[in-house]
Structures are given as C-alpha cells and as structure tokens.
C-alpha cells in the first residue's frame, strides 16, 4: 500500500484526491505518506484551499419566465359532457314513457280482440247477432231460424231485422243486415239509417220492411204464413222490447274494459261476435248476399 504513493508521484495522487477520484486504498496510502512527510501534507493542504466552493447566495431569481404551462383547455368532443348527459337522460326518459304507454295498450287490445273475434264484416256481425238471438230460446222472441229447418230459417229474416234494428239503437250502425226469407238466396240488406225512426220502421212492419225498405227480397206469402204459424210469438214489433231486454244480458256478458266508452264498445263487439257465430252456424246451408242499398256487394255461400 505504501509503495503505491511515493515522493515522486504524490502530487498526482493529491490532485486525484482533491477531485475525489481515489479509492479507499489509494487514499489511505496518500494520507499515510502525508503523515510521514510534512511537505506532502503542506502540498495537500494548499490544493484543498484552492478547491472552489459553490456560492449558494447567487441565484437565478424568479424562474416563472422559464416555466411552461399546459395548453389552455384541450377541447375535446365531450367538453360539454354535462349537456350531453342531460340530453341522454331526457331521451331515455321519453323512450321509457313511450314504451310503458305501448305496453298498456294490449290490455285494451285484448278486450277488443275478444270482441273482434267476431267476423270482420259488419254484415257477418249482424248475422252473428241474429244467430245468437235465434239460439236463445229464453228470449221472448222465438227465433225460428235457430230452431226450424233450413226452409224455415229462410223465412226468418224478419227477426234479424228486429235484431238489427235493436242493434242500431244501442250503437249507430251504418249497415243492417237483413236476411230475407228468400228460400234460395237470402239477401242481406244493408241499411244505413241509424235513427230510431228507422228502427221503428224496420221493426213495426217487419214484413213490410223486408219488402219495402231497402230492398231485395221478400218472402212469399206462404213462407210468411208458415213462419207465423211456427212462431206464435212472432211479431217482431212486440218482441222488440223483448229483444232489447234479451239483448241486454248479452251486453252484460261483454268484457269490461277500461273506461265506460270502451266497455260499451267492447260489449257491442262481443255481442256481434256471438250473433255472428250463431248466424254462421245456422246459415251453413244458405247463401247470403250482401248488398248496400240496391247494390250487391258479394254473396257468401256456406
């Protein structure tokens, strides 16, 4: 160790020592030599005195001019995220509202559907009504169409007229299906009158309405007589109130839906469906001609 630093090379080691470039071993060797030789120690102290010391009092000062700031609000697409969020909430609420309103509709639709199970056409509805009436023996009006043979059924249009008429009382119906007593091709006559007068006209002279009114057909005298004989309680006029009364129970059977108006409409539809069903069952072997006024629309053949 002592041979590392000698009197010939001690100055270099001193400079390295001042620069803090010596390792521990070299440093010990140099210090040992300095301890043994005063001139080496004096030289070491002299070099240490000329080593500069930083003046911490000297400062740059205000460095704010050197600092950099972040760019002013980097605008992005969602800068107004609050506005977009509020708009999204409003839109969602509107969608939920409409969705709920649509979900509530089936309730009404179900009621209507039950009512709408009847035949699509009004003519068929009235026919169903008439058939329904005929199938109810409790009615004061003995609907011969339901009970009689096909021939007799052909002579029953009078009662259907009453039914139709009664039906119009409760709900304005533009069309009235009248099943004429024509044995061959019963014709359904449509009446557009909705007033009670028309009802009275159609009901009172039942037979006459068939023949006079709007139209087509008219049963023969023999047919009428046969019908009258078979139907003791035939007069449609008298049965009118009964029909009305008998029809009432039907209405009671109707499905109630929300609201008084909807319930009445549902009842009417229900009633028509039932009558249509009955009519279709009974008119299997008869052809039905649907007319509006004097204009024949189509013929339904069973």
């Amino acid at each position, binding site marked *: 160790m002592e041979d590392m630093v000698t009197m010939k090379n001690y100055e270099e080691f001193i400079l390295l020592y001042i620069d803090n470039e010596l390792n521990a071993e070299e440093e010990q060797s140099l210090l040992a030599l300095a301890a043994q030789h005063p001139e080496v120690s004096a030289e070491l102290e002299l070099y240490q*005195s000329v080593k500069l010391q930083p003046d911490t009092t*000297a400062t*740059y000062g205000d*460095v704010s001019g*050197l*600092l950099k700031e972040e760019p002013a609000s980097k605008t992005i697409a969602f800068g107004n995220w609050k506005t977009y969020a509020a708009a999204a909430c409003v839109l969602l609420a509107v969608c939920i509202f409409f969705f709920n309103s649509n979900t509530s509709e089936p309730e009404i639709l179900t009621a209507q559907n039950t009512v709408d199970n009847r035949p699509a056409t009004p003519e068929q509805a009235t026919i169903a009504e008439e058939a329904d009436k005929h199938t109810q023996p409790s009615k004061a009006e003995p609907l011969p169409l339901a009970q009689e043979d096909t021939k007799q059924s052909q002579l029953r249009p009078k009662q259907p007229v009453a039914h139709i008429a009664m039906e119009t009382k409760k709900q304005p119906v533009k069309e009235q299906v009248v099943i004429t007593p024509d044995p061959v091709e019963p014709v359904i006559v449509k009446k557009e009158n909705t007033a009670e007068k028309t009802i009275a006209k159609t009901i009172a002279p039942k037979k006459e309405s068939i023949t006079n009114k709007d139209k087509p057909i008219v049963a023969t005298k023999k047919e009428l007589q046969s019908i009258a004989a078979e139907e003791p309680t035939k007069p449609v006029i008298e049965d009118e109130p009964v029909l009305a009364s008998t029809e009432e129970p039907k209405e009671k059977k109707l499905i109630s839906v929300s609201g008084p108006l909807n319930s009445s409409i549902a009842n009417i539809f229900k009633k028509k469906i039932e009558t249509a069903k009955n009519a279709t069952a009974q008119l299997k072997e008869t052809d039905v001609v649907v007319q509006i006024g004097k204009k024949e629309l189509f013929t339904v053949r069973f």
Partner: protein
Amino acid sequence: MELKEYNACVHEWADALFRFARKCTGHEEDARDVVQNSFVVLWEKRKDIPKEKGKAFLFQVAYRQSINLYRKNSRMTYKEEMDDDRVTRSSPTDLKQILEKALSQLDEQARALVLLKDYEGYRYDEIAKITGLSDAQVKVYLHRARKSLKQYLVSVENLI
C-alpha cells in the same frame, strides 16, 4: 420528458446553471441569457431527453453557450475584470476573492472544467460528455487548472 418533468428541472437546476454560467461568462446578464437559452433548447428537445439526463443536457448547452459568449466578449470581459480595482485593492487575505481572481485568469475551457468539478461534483467521464472531451483530456486539463490556481495563490501570498 413531460411538461411536469420540465418544470421540475427548472426549479431544481436553474440556480446551479446560473452560477455555472455566471462563472464561465464572468457576466451576470450573459449568465441569465445562457440559462434561458439552455431551458429553451431543453423544451424544444424535451421529447428526446429523459428526465434523468436533463441536468447533463442543460450544463452541456450552458457550457457551449458560455464558451461562445466568453470568447466573443473575452477582451471586454477581461478588461472589465482587470479594471475592477476592487479585486486588487481588497485584502489579499480574502481567499474567496483571490480564488475568483485566479479563476478568471484561467481560460474558458479550464474554468468550465474546474466549475463542473467543484460546483457540481461531476466525474471525469461526465465532464467529458458535457464538454465533448475525452476522459484523459478532462483529467489533464483539470490538473493543469488546479496547478494554476495553486500557483496564483502562492504568488499572492508571497506578495503579501
């Protein structure tokens, strides 16, 4: 280097850079210019410089600018210092002033090497990277500078 890291370098090295530039240039206003220019260059090249190399980059830029400024104003600066009677008339026992005088006697490169070594404590290899010299050159130039300082101190003491 991000914005925050750059600002951290400003707060941490602005004073040290100023002291180095002030000693190298010998003039305070020049030193401020050197510091400002150094940070401008650092900001421009911040994306290519990592945070840990920010100090060395700053001193490298400051060294080059100080040398250039000193060489440009060497005569005037030297004249100013020579005309400064405060140094000559002050007490020779003021070691600090003697050293400052002795330091001003060195050439700009040697002075920079001494400042980097004594003020900032850089190793030979680090000083070599900053100044663009080799390790051996740094060692030799630095030893020569220290010997010059010692000689000046001895001569002043002898005069005393």
